[in-house]
């Protein structure tokens, strides 16, 4: 038996080989591929996909495209079609779509960033520094995340405004509006909780101010404050709670409510048709055209893919070129920076706080505002959506927008807050929170004399000092001329640091309340070497003040008609006020942004 099988072996093998050679491998391969593709793409074949991307008609009957939306989880969430009118770009501006887009971008960048960050005060700031200097694409990821956050808040707000002005909250869309306002709150809280995580001065103080409003709530204020912060002040407890809010609770709520919100749009009432089509005097043929269906596959999907590509490109381009998220100094509860500012979307709240009592303007009125927002569809009894058919609604909307913008402006630090001029001027030259012009200047241009000696730049000084022999040494004493006059020394002409000094001079001399003393300079800067690569700069403003009547705030004049200077306590000696700021600058420091 074996013998006969062995004898036949050669021919058996040959026979099998021939069968293999003659087998239609191409067809087999095509069949397998087709099977796999259809399995993944919910019944759409490769040829069908090609037709979709080309904009061609379906390749088989029955149309497999609609069926795909029944078979696929991801596709089943989308509508099968929209009416042409509701896809006008200028009707929706794709704002709702962009809200979701940004949420997805934030989730992806956020998950990547989570790898490099731990939410404890001991580690948080150090982790930020490492992220920016030690993780490849770390700065890029962070900037994308920040840009996406700003974009998401902006787009969600604009979406709400759009829906209001197109009246797309009425009738069956009322509940969708309601969930939308919830989503607005969730977005604002997502952004606010993320704001604290870098644990720098900007984050710490913005959030301290924000949460301090919670304390002002009547009856429950203290408990709410403790709940948010985990302690009376923000430190480890607050950071951990905000982190968990930011990466767990808020995203969960967002996903739930986005699902509820979008399900209504996709399944129940669709995107609204622009009101002119329904209520306006559009000719019937045009109306019919605008009511025609635009299929999700291929038209809307291709459009959305294009939007993804273009929007992502624009975001990446922005982050690579000009957009960089700031990082200030380590959070310090002992030092409040000048001009603390809420994030821009809360400036309106900061503006309101300047108007009155914290409990009213910080808690009660904003709660009322949001309560009104929630019930807008039920307050508005007018069933019509076209602008000219709802004068009251449109007017209220415009007023609300204007009011918000005004309040936002009032929230800026320049409004309503008076900073003493000397402190203000120095904080512009060498601010605490960002580099400022002096730190950004070229180190070599901030010239000084040899090590062990110091050079003094007299920025604003009484005339007699120019002639005084004590200050004749041109290496140690430099007198800054006014803008418009030339430096004596040619060498100084193109020095950018000295240009800054000239502006300093102009600033300090234009302040009416900074009265120059007659025996010393009003403003000066001394520069010396601390270490071979480290320069120490000391900015000093010394000024006199006039005595004023405490009741009328008028300057007191003496018998000869001269104003009286303020004197030291219990003394006749004129009081000289001083504002000093010391800054150290290293040769290798890099301060671009």
């Amino acid at each position: 038996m074996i013998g006969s099988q062995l004898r036949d072996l050669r021919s058996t093998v040959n026979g099998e080989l021939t069968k293999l050679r003659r087998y239609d491998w191409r067809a087999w391969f095509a069949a397998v591929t087709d099977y796999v593709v259809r399995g993944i793409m919910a019944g759409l074949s490769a040829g069908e996909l090609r037709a979709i991307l080309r904009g061609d008609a379906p390749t088989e009957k029955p149309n497999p495209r609609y069926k795909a939306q029944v078979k696929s989880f991801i596709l089943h969430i989308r509508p099968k079609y929209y009416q042409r009118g509701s896809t006008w770009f200028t009707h929706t501006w794709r704002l709702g779509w962009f809200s979701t887009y940004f949420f997805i971008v934030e989730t992806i960048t956020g998950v990547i960033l989570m790898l490099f960050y731990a939410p404890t005060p001991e580690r948080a700031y150090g982790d930020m520094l490492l992220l920016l200097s030690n993780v490849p694409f770390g700065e890029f990821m962070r900037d994308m995340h920040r840009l996406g956050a700003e974009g998401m808040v902006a787009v969600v707000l604009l979406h709400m405004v759009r829906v209001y002005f197109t009246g797309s909250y009425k009738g069956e869309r009322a509940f969708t509006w309601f969930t939308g306002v919830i989503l607005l709150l969730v977005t604002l809280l997502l952004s606010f909780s993320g704001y604290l995580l870098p644990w720098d001065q900007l984050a710490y103080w913005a959030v301290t101010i924000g949460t301090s409003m919670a304390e002002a709530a009547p009856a429950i204020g203290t408990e709410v404050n403790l709940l948010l912060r985990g302690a009376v002040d923000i430190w480890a407890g607050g950071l951990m709670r905000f982190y968990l809010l930011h990466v767990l609770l808020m995203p969960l709520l967002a996903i739930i409510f986005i699902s509820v919100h979008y399900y209504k749009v996709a399944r129940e009432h669709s995107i609204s048709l622009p009101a002119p089509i329904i209520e306006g005097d559009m000719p019937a043929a045009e109306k019919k055209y605008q009511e025609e269906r635009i299929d999700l596959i291929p038209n809307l999907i291709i459009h959305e893919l294009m939007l993804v590509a273009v929007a992502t490109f624009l975001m990446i381009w922005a982050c690579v070129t000009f957009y960089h998220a700031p990082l200030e100094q380590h959070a310090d509860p002992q030092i409040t920076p000048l001009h603390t500012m809420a994030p821009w979307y809360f400036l309106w709240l900061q503006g309101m706080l300047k108007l009155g009592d914290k409990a009213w303007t910080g808690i009660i009125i904003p709660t009322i505002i949001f309560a009104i927002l929630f019930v807008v569809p039920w307050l508005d009894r007018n069933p019509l959506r076209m602008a000219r058919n709802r004068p009251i609604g449109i007017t209220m909307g415009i007023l609300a927008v204007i009011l918000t913008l005004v309040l936002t402006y009032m929230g800026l630090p320049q409004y309503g807050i008076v900073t003493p001029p000397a402190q203000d001027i120095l904080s512009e030259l060498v601010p605490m929170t960002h580099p400022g012009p002096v730190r950004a200047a070229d180190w070599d241009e901030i010239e000084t004399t040899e090590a062990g000696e110091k050079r003094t730049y007299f920025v604003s000084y009484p005339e007699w000092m120019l002639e005084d022999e004590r200050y004749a040494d041109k290496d140690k004493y430099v007198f800054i001329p006014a803008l418009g006059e030339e430096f004596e020394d040619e060498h100084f002409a193109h020095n950018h640091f000295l240009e800054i000094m000239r502006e300093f001079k102009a600033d300090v001399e234009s302040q009416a309340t900074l009265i120059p003393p007659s025996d010393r300079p009003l403003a000066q800067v001394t520069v010396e070497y601390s270490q071979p690569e480290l320069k120490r700069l000391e900015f000093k403003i010394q000024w006199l003040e006039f005595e004023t009547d405490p009741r009328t705030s008028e300057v007191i004049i003496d018998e000869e008609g001269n104003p009286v200077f303020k004197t030291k306590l219990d003394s006749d000696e004129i009081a000289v006020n001083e504002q000093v700021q010391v800054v150290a600058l290293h040769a290798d420091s890099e301060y671009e942004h």
Partner: protein
Amino acid sequence: MIRIEITLGLLATIATVFLIALYGTREDERMSTRARAYDVRSVERGAEMYEQYCASCHGPNAVGGMCPPLNEYSGLVGGTRGPGIAWRMEELGLDRTAAYEYVYSAIDAGRTVSSRPWRWVGNRSAGNEGVMAMPAWGQNNGGPLRPDQMKDIANFIVGFDDFVPTDFAEAEAWLAEIQADPNIEMVSVYDEPGAQAEPPSEDDPIAYGEYLFGTKACNTCHAYEPAGSVANACPPLDGVLAIAAERVADEDYDGAADSALAYLRESMLDPGAYIVPEYRESGSSIMPNLALTESETDSLIAFLTGELPEGFEAAEEPEDEEEATESEEDDAASEDEDAASEDEASEDTEEDASDEDEEADEESDGDEEEAEDEDEE
């Protein structure tokens, strides 16, 4: 329309890929520049914090004061304070590379006692022995500073090592060169690191006074030209006899002295008896009681005034070298320097000059004060 959108989308995707690739090629350089920038910002912040927390004891730019200098400069180039961190590490037998840890732990935990109390009293002074010589700054030890702040300050302090060659033998050779250079002044033999000079005997009051001026740490607070000290935390001692005469005559004075010399004695033996008004509000501690003996007090006065106490005779001819220099306007209390005192006409002492040391000469000149030149060794 679909074709246009597809084209646009594809172009955007390709552009994105290019952009990321371009960014990626520069990423290494960006990261290393940024890392260096952050290290350097740490030094800058450390320098700024130094001013706020450390300068009151360790002096501006770490030149030293009540407490040791932290820069290398003063120890090497003729300063009077003493060795800086590098020298200290060497003295202690520690590796120079451990300087950061050394400095950080000193900041964090402080120092309970001064390791060289004859030189640096630190925070402890007579009547105040309970406190730490250097306070603990770390939050874990009860102080105000966070770990990142202490790291910044330590980064700043170890940055002074740029002045010092890292090889200690090289540094010593360099120092020897400086000492041999006639153009560079070394103020006192007792400032040389490692010097084991015999202290002068009490038979030579002015020299002994100079020795005491250093070892009792007077030079860490008081400016006095012959000792080369420029500290301005406390009243300057140049022309002190004339100043003392004025103080005694001043209405404000409420101590027990009735003459300039008695005033000087009182200042040294009972510093709290009277504090000059300009220095009352300065916030720094008053002069500690140094528990001086009679002969120590005599020697110090001899050094300060240039006049030998009773019973001593001059050994050599005076060497008179004077130079008029300009003084700076910075010190608050240096206005009333000149009285009309003649130099030799003090009460019961003969006029002599010291062998090597200087003589305090007061001549009212109308504007400037004169400084003496010291000749050492």
